[in-house]
C-alpha cells in the first residue's frame, strides 16, 4: 500500500571508485580545524555543527528505517540517548575509561541491542505497532531510565570526555567537528553499501508490499527486524557524537519532541534521499540560531512550530517529502521531452540460466514423480467453501492450464499451493515431498516461483532492481559483508547482475532497465514479472492470469515465452488463464474449476467443448 506517484527513471547507481570516500574523509577531517584556526569558524558555531552532525547521523538511521524499510519509529531519539549514555559509561573518567572509539562502538552496539529487543515482538505484526512501541521507548527513556542516577548521572548529568589522540585531547569544538564529520561520512558509506546489497533491496520490497516480498523469498519479519536493529545502532553512534560534543548529557536532552523532529527531518528531506535528510537535519538544528539572529529572542521556540506545520504540509502534498516533489518536477520536464521508449519489435529468445552457486540446491525431481501434486485440498472462508476437495497434478516439462469462471476458486487453490494460506484439509506435494507445512518463502526457495494476479512486483523499483531482488535467496552473503562492501557480497552481486542482464536481454527490455516498474503498461509489467520468476531458475513456474490486460500481440509473445520456458529451459508451468486461444496453443493438460471443485481435466481441446465446462462459463440456463 504505497503511493501512486512514481519517478520516471530510478537513477542508476553509479559505483563510486573507492578513492571517493577517501577524498571525503580527507576533506572533512581537514576543513573544520583549518577554518577554525583561520578565524572563520567560531567555537559556538562549531558546537552547533557538531550537534547538527549528530542529528544528521540520527536522521540517516531513521531514513534507513522509514525511507527504506517503510517502518515508522517515534522514539528514535531515545536510541540516540542510549548511545550517549553508553559512551559516557564506557569512556567516562569515573567509569570504564576506555578509548573513545570503543565508546563509539559500544554506543552503536547498545543502540542496536535495545532496538533488537524492542523490535522483536512488534515487527512480527503488521501495521503501526512499531510506532506505538517506539513511543513507549521514548517515554521510558526520557521519563525514566535516563533519570536513573547510575545511568544518567542524576541532575548533574553524565560526563562524556573528549577523545584522546595519544596524550592530547581533541579538545576544541572544531577539532571534534572534524571527527564527527568523519563518523558521518563512514556511516553514510556503510548505509550506501547496505542499500545496494540484497538487504537494501529486501527492505524496499518489504516496504512496497510484504506479500510480494515474501514471494521473492524474503523473510519479512527478519528483514524488518534487521532494519530496525541497524537503525538503532546508527542512532547509537549519533548519540556518541552528541554526548561527546556537549561534554555532559542529562536526560532532559532526549525529549519526546526531538524524536518527532527527527521524523520531520526525514520526511521533509525526502524519504530515501540521504543528501536530503542530512541537509534537512542541518537545517533543523541550525534554524533556531538563525531565526534568533534574524528576529531576536522573542522568536525562540517557533522553529519547532514551523517544523511541525511543514511536516503536515509536506506529507499531505507528497508522501515522499521534498525530495519527492523535486523528483516529480524533474520528471514532468523529462516527460514533456518524450516519455518511455517503445518496445523493440522482435524479441530474442530466453537464455538458459545456470543456477547460482549460492542458491540452495534445486532438488532434481525423480523420474516419474510429478513436479506438483495437490491432493483433496479444501479451503473454507466463513460460510463459503472456496475450494472443495480439489486435486491437481503437474508433470515435469509440461504446461498445465487451470481455467474456470470468476469465483471458481482458482487463485485460492494457487494460494494454498504456494503457502500464502493454509488449507483446511488436503496435501500439497512438491517434487514428491509434502510441503503442506512450509511457509511461502521456504517453498519459493525450493523452486516454486509464481506471479500474482495483481502484478507482484515492487512498483517503485526499476525493472533491473526487481530482477535483482527476485534472486534474493540465491545470493547467500551476510550483513557484515554487505555493510563493508567487500568479500562475498561483491562477488555475488556481480553474478546477480549478470543473470539479471541476461534475462533483461532475453526479454528485450534493455531500454526499460531503469524504469520503475509501475510506469510500464500492464502487459509489460507482466513480462517483467515472468522474467523475475525465471531469473531464479525455478523448477515450477506458476502464473496467475498472465495475459490479463494484454493486447493480442502481447499475448502471442507471451505464448511464445511460455513455450520457450518449457522447451528451451525445460521447466514446468502451471497457469491460470481466461484466454482460451492462449491456453489451447500452449497447454498440454487443462483443468477446469467451478464453485471450488475441479469439474474437468484432460486434453485442452477436448475439455473445452465439454458441456459442463461450457455451462460453468456461461451459467445455468434456469428455466
Amino acid at each position: 500500500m504505497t503511493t501512486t506517484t512514481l519517478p520516471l527513471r530510478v537513477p542508476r547507481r553509479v559505483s563510486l571508485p573507492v578513492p571517493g570516500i577517501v577524498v571525503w574523509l580527507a576533506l572533512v577531517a581537514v576543513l573544520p580545524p583549518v577554518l577554525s584556526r583561520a578565524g572563520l569558524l567560531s567555537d559556538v558555531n562549531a558546537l552547533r555543527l557538531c550537534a547538527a552532525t549528530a542529528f544528521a547521523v540520527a536522521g540517516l538511521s531513521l531514513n534507513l528505517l522509514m525511507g527504506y524499510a517503510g517502518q515508522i519509529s517515534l522514539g528514535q531519539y531515545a536510541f540516540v540517548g542510549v548511545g550517549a549514555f553508553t559512551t559516557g559509561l564506557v569512556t567516562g573518567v569515573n567509569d570504564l575509561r576506555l578509548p573513545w572509539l570503543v565508546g563509539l562502538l559500544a554506543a552503536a552496539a547498545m543502540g542496536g541491542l535495545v532496538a533488537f529487543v524492542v523490535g522483536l515482538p512488534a515487527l512480527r505484526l503488521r501495521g503501526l505497532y512499531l510506532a506505538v512501541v517506539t513511543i513507549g521507548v521514548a517515554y521510558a527513556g526520557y521519563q525514566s531510565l535516563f533519570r536513573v542516577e547510575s545511568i544518567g548521572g542524576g541532575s548533574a548529568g553524565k560526563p562524556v570526555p573528549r577523545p584522546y589522540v595519544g596524550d592530547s585531547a581533541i579538545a576544541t569544538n572544531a577539532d571534534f567537528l572534524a571527527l564527527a564529520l568523519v563518523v558521518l561520512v563512514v556511516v553514510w558509506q556503510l548505509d550506501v553499501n547496505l542499500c545496494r546489497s540484497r538487504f537494501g533491496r529486501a527492505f524496499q520490497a518489504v516496504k512496497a508490499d510484504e506479500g510480494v516480498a515474501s514471494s521473492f523469498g524474503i523473510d519479512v519479519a527478519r528483514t524488518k527486524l534487521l532494519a530496525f536493529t541497524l537503525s538503532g545502532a546508527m542512532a547509537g553512534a549519533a548519540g556518541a557524537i552528541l554526548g561527546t560534543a556537549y561534554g555532559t548529557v542529562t536526560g532532559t536532552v532526549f525529549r519526546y519532541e526531538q524524536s518527532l523532529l527527527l521524523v520531520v527531518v526525514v520526511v521533509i528531506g525526502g524519504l530515501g534521499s540521504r543528501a536530503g535528510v542530512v541537509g534537512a537535519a542541518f537545517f533543523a538544528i541550525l534554524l533556531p540560531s538563525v531565526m534568533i539572529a534574524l528576529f531576536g529572542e522573542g522568536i525562540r521556540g517557533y522553529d519547532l512550530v514551523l517544523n511541525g506545520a511543514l511536516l503536515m504540509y509536506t506529507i499531505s502534498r507528497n508522501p515522499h517529502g521534498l525530495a519527492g516533489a523535486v523528483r516529480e518536477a524533474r520528471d514532468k520536464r523529462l516527460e514533456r521531452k518524450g516519455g518511455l521508449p517503445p518496445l523493440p519489435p522482435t524479441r530474442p529468445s530466453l537464455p538458459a540460466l545456470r543456477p547460482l552457486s549460492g542458491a540452495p540446491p534445486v532438488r532434481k525431481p525423480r523420474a516419474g514423480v510429478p513436479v506438483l501434486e495437490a491432493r483433496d485440498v479444501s479451503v473454507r472462508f466463513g460460510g463459503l467453501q472456496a475450494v472443495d476437495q480439489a486435486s491437481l497434478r503437474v508433470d515435469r516439462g509440461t504446461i498445465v492450464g487451470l481455467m474456470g469462471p470468476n469465483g471458481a476458486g482458482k487463485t485460492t487453490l494457487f494460494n494454498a499451493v504456494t503457502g500464502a494460506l493454509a488449507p483446511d484439509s488436503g496435501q500439497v506435494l512438491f517434487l514428491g515431498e509434502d510441503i503442506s507445512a512450509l511457509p511461502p518463502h521456504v517453498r519459493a526457495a525450493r523452486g516454486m516461483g509464481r506471479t500474482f494476479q495483481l502484478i507482484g512486483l515492487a512498483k517503485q523499483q526499476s525493472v533491473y532492481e526487481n530482477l535483482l531482488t527476485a534472486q534474493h535467496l540465491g545470493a547467500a552473503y551476510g550483513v557484515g559483508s554487505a555493510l563493508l562492501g567487500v568479500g562475498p557480497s561483491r562477488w555475488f552481486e556481480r553474478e546477480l547482475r549478470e543473470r539479471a542482464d541476461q534475462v533483461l536481454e532475453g526479454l528485450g527490455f534493455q531500454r526499460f532497465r531503469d524504469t520503475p516498474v509501475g510506469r510500464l503498461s500492464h502487459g509489460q509489467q507482466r513480462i517483467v514479472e515472468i522474467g523475475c520468476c525465471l531469473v531464479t531458475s525455478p523448477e515450477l513456474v506458476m502464473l496467475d492470469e498472465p495475459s490479463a490486460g494484454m493486447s493480442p500481440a502481447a499475448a502471442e509473445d507471451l505464448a511464445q515465452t511460455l513455450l520457450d520456458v518449457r522447451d528451451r529451459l525445460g521447466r514446468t508451468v502451471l497457469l491460470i488463464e481466461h484466454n482460451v486461444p492462449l491456453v489451447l496453443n500452449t497447454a498440454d493438460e487443462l483443468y477446469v474449476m467451478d464453485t471450488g471443485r475441479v469439474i474437468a481435466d484432460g486434453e485442452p481441446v477436448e475439455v473445452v467443448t465439454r458441456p459442463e465446462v461450457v455451462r460453468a462459463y456461461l451459467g445455468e440456463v434456469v428455466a
Partner: protein
Amino acid sequence: MGQVLVLGLIAGGIYALFAIGIVLVHRGTGVLNFAQGEIGTAALLVAYVVVHDLGAPWLVGALVAVVAAVLLGAGFEFAVVRRMISSDPVSTAVATVGLTLTLVSIEIIYVGDSGKVLDNPFDSGFTVAGVVVFPHQVLAVLVALALGFGLQRLLRRTDFGLGILAAAQDPDAVRLVGVPLSRVSLAVWGLGGALSGTAALLAEPTVGLITPGFASEFFVFGLAAAVIGGLGSLPGAVAGALALGVLEAAEQAYLPLDVPGERYLLLLAVVLVALLGRALGPELRSRFLGPARPAAAEVTA
C-alpha cells in the same frame, strides 16, 4: 488491595477516555491519531486562557475548551486527513505526528518552564478504601464506562450515527446508500477531539499543573490499551485501559522499583509482552489446535 483498585480506576478512567478516542477515529476513518493526546493539552490551555485571562468560571472554560478541541480535530480532518485519503496509513499517521509537534511546540512557547495552574472547583473529595477520591475522577470513570459501553447504542438511534457505525464496516457501501462520508469523517474527528479535551480537563485537577506535553503522558497509556486490545471494540479498549490503570497501581504498591518514572517502564514492558503474545499466539495455537483458518478478507477467484 481496595486502595490499589481505587487508585487504578482513577488513573484508568483517564486512559480509557483517550483509548475511546483512538479507537473511534481508527475505526471510523482508518487513521491512528498520535496527536490525540496533545489536542487535549491544547484544549486545556484554552481553558486556562478563558479562566485566567478572561476571568470566567471553570465550567465556562471547560466548555470552551471542549469546543476548541472539537474544532481542532475537525479542522485537522478537513485540512489534512481529507487530502490524504489515497495515501497509506503510515503517511497519515506521520501527518498526526506533525500535528503533535506543532501543538507541543506552541505549548512550550506559551507555557515555558514554569507550567500553568488552572483553578478548578474540585476541592472537596470523599474517602473510599482509604483513598481520597474527587468528583472529577469519578466523573472520568463514569463517562468512560458510559461511552465505552453505550456509545454504539447512542449512535444507532440516529441515521447519521448509524452512518458512522456503517462507515467503520464498509466506507464504499456507505457512499452508495447516500450517506455523506466526508461529513461522517469530520464528525468522527470532532468527537475524537472532544474526548481528548474532556480527558485532559478531568486529568488536570489531579496533577494540578499544566506542562507542555501534559496530556500525552496519559494518552500513551490509553494508546497502549487500545492497541493491545486490537483497536477493534470500544468496550474492550475501556476494559483494557482500566485494567492497565489497576496494574500500574498494583506495581507501585507491591513491586516498587524505586526508579523515576517507573510507570513508563511498566508500560513498555506491558506493550512488549502483549505484542509478543499476539505474535506468538497463532503459532502456539496452531501447534496445539491445528493450522489457522485463512482470513476471509481477500477472496478473488
